[in-house]
């Protein structure tokens, strides 16, 4: 049964990650922490893209709301993490629910642009509400609970939260709910005629995506000890969108791969040349021209070839 195999594979990955700090490289720990956060972020977006077929150009909004809310609650209000984090995630989910209510009335590019508009509004609020968010100076100096203030502690914390988040998303995506979303993506008129309230379902998906995006954002803010309005800007939404597309939208783990590859690529390229746009551009071209289903398509093809007796 493939399901069990997937389960074992995931367990091994988590275990290997858990052993990483033993290798002793501070840099590897930091980088892996970042990749895990982006993986969750990308995966949350794919609930929308891969499962309802709606592209969001504004997913950074929920990321930023989660990040800012957690940062502000921890620092300005001195809440304990156990309260601040859930509250931030719920807030992101709530905002996603409100925004989603309007967005799911539209489809395709109109949907995308409306999500963009709302996200830019969130950006505007973060920008202008200087007393609370620090405006474009950013909100720095986040207070962190002792246990996770150290980078190793934070790594394990992220590992646990991200693994739980991914597991939850896995269950949701493979549930009856997830399958019905796919049907809506494929043909929403038809889905209406089998008795599915397509708008409500897409609304729910939007909210789920926003909620988990908020979780990723909260982790991100604490990792950097700062949130910045750039985190809510459309370029950030574009970045995570590229991660998802790069990995491949029609598979669960595609976005995880995309997030890891893109982030590492950007990080490493930047170490060698300021011409990273060219490098990234060329890589994207290759992927687009010869890897139709994103990186996951490549993985599958290689696996199919290797798996054949």
């Amino acid at each position, binding site marked *: 049964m493939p399901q069990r195999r997937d389960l074992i594979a995931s367990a091994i990955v988590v275990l290997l990650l858990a052993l990483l700090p033993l290798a002793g490289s*501070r*840099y590897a720990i*930091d*980088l892996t922490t*970042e990749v895990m956060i982006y993986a969750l972020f990308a995966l949350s977006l794919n609930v929308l893209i891969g499962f309802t077929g709606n592209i969001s150009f504004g997913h950074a909004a929920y990321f930023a709301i989660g990040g800012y809310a957690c940062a502000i609650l921890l620092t300005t209000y001195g809440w304990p993490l156990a309260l601040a984090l859930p509250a931030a995630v719920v807030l992101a989910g709530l905002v996603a629910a409100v925004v989603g209510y309007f967005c799911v009335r539209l489809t395709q590019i109109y949907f995308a642009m409306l999500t963009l508009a709302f996200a830019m509004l969130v950006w505007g609020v973060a*920008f202008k509400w200087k007393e609370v968010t620090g*405006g*474009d*100076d*950013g909100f*720095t*100096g986040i207070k962190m609970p002792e246990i996770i203030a150290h980078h190793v502690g934070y790594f394990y914390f992220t590992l646990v939260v991200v693994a739980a988040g991914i597991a939850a998303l896995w269950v949701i995506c493979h549930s009856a709910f997830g399958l019905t979303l796919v049907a809506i993506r494929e043909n929403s008129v038809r889905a209406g005629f089998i008795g599915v309230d397509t708008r409500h379902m897409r609304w729910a998906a939007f909210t789920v995506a926003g909620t988990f995006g908020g979780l990723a954002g909260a982790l*991100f803010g604490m990792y*950097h*000890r*700062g949130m*910045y*309005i*750039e*985190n809510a800007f459309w*370029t950030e939404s574009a970045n995570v969108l590229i991660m998802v597309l790069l990995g491949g939208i029609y598979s669960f783990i595609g976005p995880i791969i995309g997030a890891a590859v893109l982030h590492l690529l950007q*990080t490493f390229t*930047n*170490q060698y040349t*300021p011409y*990273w*746009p060219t490098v990234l551009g060329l890589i994207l071209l290759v992927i687009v021209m010869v890897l139709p289903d994103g990186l996951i398509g490549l993985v599958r093809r290689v696996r199919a070839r290797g798996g054949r007796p």
Partner: protein
Amino acid sequence: QGAPIKIGVLYPLTGGGAVYGAPALVGHQMAIEELNAKGGIMGRKVESLERDDKLNPATASSTMKELITKDKVDIVLGGLASSVGLAMTEVSKQEKVVYISTIPKSIQITTDKLHKYVFRTSANTDQEGEAMAILAGKNKLAKICHLELDYAYGNDLEAGILKAMPKYAPDAKIVLTLKPKLGATDFNPFIPQVMAAGCDGVLSGLWGPHFVSWVKQAAPLGFFNKIKWISGGEVGSHEIAGELKGEYPDNVISNTYELWYKGNDPSHKEFQEKLAKKLNTQETPQWAALGYIGVMYAAAAMEKAKSTDPDKVAEALEGLSIGTPVGTLTIDAKTHQANIGQFWGPMVKKPDRAYRMMEPAEYIQPK
């Protein structure tokens, strides 16, 4: 001869910020070359690790951490945007590595967010605002229109000006304050308002492309005929004068860090000639000096501390005076702010040049 000393530096090298990041990096590289030619720091070679901050504070934060944890740099320099400067200040605090802010002007770096390891060798918005207030007073402006870009730098500069006005320009009254957005290219909503307000002078923080776009859109209406334009944001630099050439308007008084034609100070002359050779142009950009000074401060501090240990280097930087292309600078031991000044003066036509030059240029250095 020990292992090389590693200096990490972040400037925006792609996108909109590259206009300033790229020339600053040139100055930075020049300083490194000079140091190595002279045998390095404490006899150790100097290695420069240069990264693009993409004008994004989160990227800057990750990249700076990477420089510290992976590349084990001894000190970090650079930044351009205020938010990037603040993000780097935060990392420097966590990682206990010295950070010298070479361009960001946000006052917070040397006030609220000040900590042991952060220093600034660029001007800050209070200094700039003070200079503008002085000029407003000197030019006897009575009714002032105030233009700032609506973001951190603009707001901080506004605060700096308002703080200094009562002292230096007590008779001036601000009759209109307008704040176009950062990155604005179309100033049509603002130009008529300023023209209708009847002010005799404008205090402006519109820098670089903002200033150029304003000029292009306002000049056809005769805007600069009547109104004196006192501007921060270094629009008195050659990169703007040389580009606008004949279109550079009358009545502008502004600032710049460095003047390629100043030449009366020997250290400046030497610096400028080297830079001119490196860039293969007589008219050099001002930002190079900032990159250069940052490196020189780092080197001097390490030499003084005889160590690269951040604590010792930080201590050495406090109160440290060095000679630079813009004269002798001292870092205040308390505020960690260098007393770097700027050249201020009117931009005038020259019969033998296609572009305007600042004349007379007055070097205003904070006390």
